[in-house]
């Protein structure tokens, strides 16, 4: 688990890495529209990361072919960009990882191009679960507490939590310990300490709790229903958390 001291060089690098990621995602939020090709997004991300002297952490990770994960509708995560133009009614999840001076950050957003009320609730509830989880994190909180609040938010919105996927520690590698499941029992699990770098990522779907993985990468919902995914990298401080993406 990456544990960094506030005001150290690693902390500053991590903040720059987070800033690059945040800027890219905010740019994409404004520029991606109905009709945008997924390959255009991939090119834009590639170009922007190179301009900022950073590296995409997903490219080449265990053989992953692209810099950004673009997951459309029933694809939950790890979608590989392909020749596809975004249509009305799509949910597009953009997941991005940045390395700056060997410090890793991870962030994701889901863009809603659908007018359907259910899809709107799905995106809002997932975002709310992430915010709720971030609010309760402070030193001494356990991973079960984080999972429990995420699961409760899903239950309130009558949505399903994807059980097989989880949040994780990050900072000095793409995935580190601890594993932060999106469900759990209060006061159980690994204790969070000050200085820990965590990637919290609630993933909800309309009906499926289980996944299917037909090729090595793209993970889809079992019932082919839509899913949403939001993610932030946070540093745990003495009093709470600092969101860096």
């Amino acid at each position, binding site marked *: 688990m990456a544990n960094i001291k506030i005001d150290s060089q690693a902390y500053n690098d991590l903040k720059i890495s987070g800033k690059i990621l945040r800027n890219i995602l905010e740019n994409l939020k404004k520029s991606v529209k109905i009709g945008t090709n997924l390959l255009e997004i991939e090119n834009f991300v590639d170009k922007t990361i190179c301009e900022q002297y950073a590296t995409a952490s997903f490219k080449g990770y265990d053989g992953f072919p692209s810099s950004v994960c673009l997951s459309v509708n029933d694809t939950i995560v790890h979608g590989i960009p392909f020749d596809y133009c975004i249509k009305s009614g799509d949910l597009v999840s953009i997941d991005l990882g940045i390395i700056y001076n060997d410090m890793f950050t991870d962030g994701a957003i889901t863009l809603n191009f659908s007018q359907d009320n259910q899809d709107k609730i799905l995106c809002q509830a997932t975002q709310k679960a992430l915010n709720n989880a971030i609010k309760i994190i402070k030193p001494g909180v356990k991973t*079960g507490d984080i999972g429990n609040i995420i699961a409760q938010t899903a239950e309130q919105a009558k949505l399903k939590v994807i*059980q*097989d*996927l*989880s949040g*994780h520690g990050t900072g000095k590698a793409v*995935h580190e310990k601890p*594993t932060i*499941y999106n*469900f*759990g*029992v209060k006061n*159980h*699990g690994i204790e969070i300490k000050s200085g820990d770098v965590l990637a919290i990522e609630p993933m909800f779907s309309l009906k499926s709790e*289980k*996944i299917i*993985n037909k090729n090595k990468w793209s*993970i889809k919902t079992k019932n082919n229903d839509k899913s949403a995914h939001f993610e932030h990298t946070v540093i745990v401080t003495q009093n709470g958390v600092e969101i860096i993406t």
Partner: protein
Amino acid sequence: MSKKEVITLEGVVEESLPNTIFRVILENGQKVLGILSGKMRKNYIKVTVGDRVLVEFSLYNLTKGRIIRRI
């Protein structure tokens, strides 16, 4: 234990350990220990490295589970 307090996750057997214990890599990349369930032993279901298995966990400990099926 009530059914609500268990959860089943899918994984791949990475290593076979003594006493029908296996190291399993879950879909999220986490390595966990899985012990063969009674029904699997009773029916002589063989599990080897590389097999996809269903592992049942208690919500109170998500690092050790019971291998309940080979898929």
